[in-house]
């Protein structure tokens, strides 16, 4: 299913911040051919800086997070240029934390890496991580988050910077969390991962032939 990016932008535009971040440069023409190199690529991802999930002002910090996935050239817009086949939040001895206690996050994968807009001058692709689905446990509080999280990928650094917009992620079930994390709450997800395909940095290039 392909939708013009302008429609997506209008949907996201319910929040003004989202509108500003997602709006393509006026002059850009939406890319429909996406070249991932190498392709197919077996990708590993390791966080750079802390990953922070926030819900209703309650912050959860992961100092360690890593994942693995695949990348492949494709066509269309938006276009799934990669999949995250596994992702871990926290590590043995370094769990994610909150003031309510350690946070355990179990992801249901695959998540998708979706490209929407490419700026050749900077080598930056805008898009989102889609199909996000994770169960988060803090003590007796367990909730499930689904949705997507906007982000950018920079070819020069291999950095996927995820900075989800309000409303992209939703709590779809919750027990033991009271009014802190009710169903319908809108968490945000923020953090940067560095991608590698072997020792190389994979690149994503969009074009519109």
């Amino acid at each position, binding site marked *: 299913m392909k939708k013009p990016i302008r429609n997506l932008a209008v949907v996201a535009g319910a929040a003004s911040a989202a509108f500003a971040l997602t709006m393509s440069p006026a002059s850009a023409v939406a890319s429909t051919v996406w070249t991932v190199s190498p392709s197919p690529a077996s990708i590993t991802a390791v966080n750079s800086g802390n990953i*922070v999930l*926030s819900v*209703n*002002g309650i912050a959860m910090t992961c100092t360690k997070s890593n994942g693995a996935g695949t990348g492949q050239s494709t066509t269309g817009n938006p276009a799934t240029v990669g999949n995250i086949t596994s992702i871990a939040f926290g590590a*043995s001895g370094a769990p994610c*934390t*909150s003031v309510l206690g*350690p946070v*355990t996050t179990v992801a249901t994968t695959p998540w998708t890496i979706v490209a929407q807009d490419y700026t050749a001058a900077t080598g930056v692709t805008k898009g989102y991580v889609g199909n996000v689905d994770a169960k988060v446990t803090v003590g007796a509080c367990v909730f499930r988050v689904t949705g997507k999280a906007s982000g950018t990928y920079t070819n020069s650094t291999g950095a996927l910077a995820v900075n989800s917009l309000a409303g992209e992620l939703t709590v779809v079930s919750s027990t033991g969390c*009271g009014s802190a994390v009710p169903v319908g709450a809108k968490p945000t997800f923020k953090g940067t991962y560095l991608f590698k395909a072997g020792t190389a940095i994979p690149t994503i290039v969009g074009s519109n032939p």
Partner: protein
Amino acid sequence: MRGPGPTPRSSRARVRGATIAAFVALAPLLPAAAVAVGTLKVDAALPYVCTLPSGPQPATVRIAAAFPERVAPGEEIRPADVTTTVELPAAAVADLTALKAATVRAESRLAVGVAQNEQRAEATWSGTAQPVDVPADGPLVLTTTGDVPTLTTDAAGDLTLSAEGLALDLAPSAAEATPTVPASLSVSCVPGQAPENRTPFATIPVGAGTGEPGTPPASPSAPSAPPPSSAPSSLPSSSAGRAVPVRPGTADGRDHAPKGPRIGRQVDKGPKAADENTPGTPAARPAAPPCVTENPTSHSLSAYITGYSNVRKLNGANVIPVSCVLIEQGDPVFDPRPDGSFHLLTPSTGNLSYQGRKQTPPFKATFLTFGFAPATATMVLEQTGPLTVDSDVLLAFPDNLSDTYVRARLVLRVLDVRINGTRLDVGPSCRTEKSLTSPEPDPAKYPGDHLVLLGKGQLINGTDATGYLLTGGGPLTGEVTIPAFKGCGAGGENLDRLLTASISGPGNYIKQIQGQTCAVEVPTEGQCTEDLQPYVVPKPER
């Protein structure tokens, strides 16, 4: 200053205390002479072989219990006054002294084979012992007591009870009341006699049949232990003591035979052995008392807590031993304040849990009273009212700052005092006259005497949360006033003033470390044991 100076205690009184202590210690060893009408008293000494770090050692296991002399089919058999006494030889004591253990606390699990008319079932008799001093030489005698499961059978005929595998969990402590390294020693024991040579230790006639009156076939003069049996008895499983009715002949009790002995639940919320330290399995975590949540809910948490409590008057610090707290976590609620700040409140409730009672395990503290006389007191903290855990998180984006107040009504009960090695009989009800008290930041909302501990945690701008975290644990600190003692003394001697003068007073600093909680219904890897007890056993911190 509360109370006058110490009451002089005569040396005669000290000797009297010591004499009583000696009598009490010997009492479990005296053979049962009298058999009350209608009651079958059993006192059997059985040869066992126990596997210690230094190798197999002969031991004597003495089982004492009282049963109904005869029961009707279907009538409950309720074993009473059950004690299991294990006499370990001097060589076993060497294993403990090698750990520099001054005292040792024991928990036992005895597998008891129940048989009737070719049908069999197995019960577990669990017991715990008060801490005893490790003798410099000679044997170590550990007498454990506890409530045991009831028995019922619908069939007529003799019901026999036989002693099988015995598991002992020993928790040695060094002289300064700190755990030794390793902190626990698990010992498994098997009957010394081959199965075909063993006789039941009790026989209870059921119904009006011609079964012979029950007699304890084994006597204290039983032969010394032969070499280990080549067919060791099964050790009791850690869950057998909680088994719902088990019928003999099958492992799961699903035998369809209409009649036969059944093991009921324990008579009371009796002691349970430490499941995690089952003998024969490597210790995956430090020794800790059982911490089982019965009937858990989705909000059930359990945790261990331990730490130091200063007694300012005595210039000393107690270690409050690893204690189990069972918590029901409240639902977090938002609390917008008039000043515009946003708070998240999580009100939880809990209880201390030790052998079915709301208290800490007993702990020993040694002090120099009045600067010269070494005194050792065995004490427990008993919970006498609600225990609440109130977490208040200030949501100051992007930071979270949390204050968690633990409030508990706890009296300090003194079980035993020894001054210069001589026992001072404090009687059975020696305790503080009211709860330990702390300065209360919100006395209007939380009136009355209670202990207050505060845990502070924070998460600053996307970094890791630090400090005390509600479910993650951490340090809880406070200051406590120890009230005056009452009910202390025996034989007409009032020791209230002595203890009050020695211990009671304000300004005692407490630092307790809570371990990671186990969310019983939603266990997370690394947080709960397989049988859903808290995995993390915290260590005291200065």
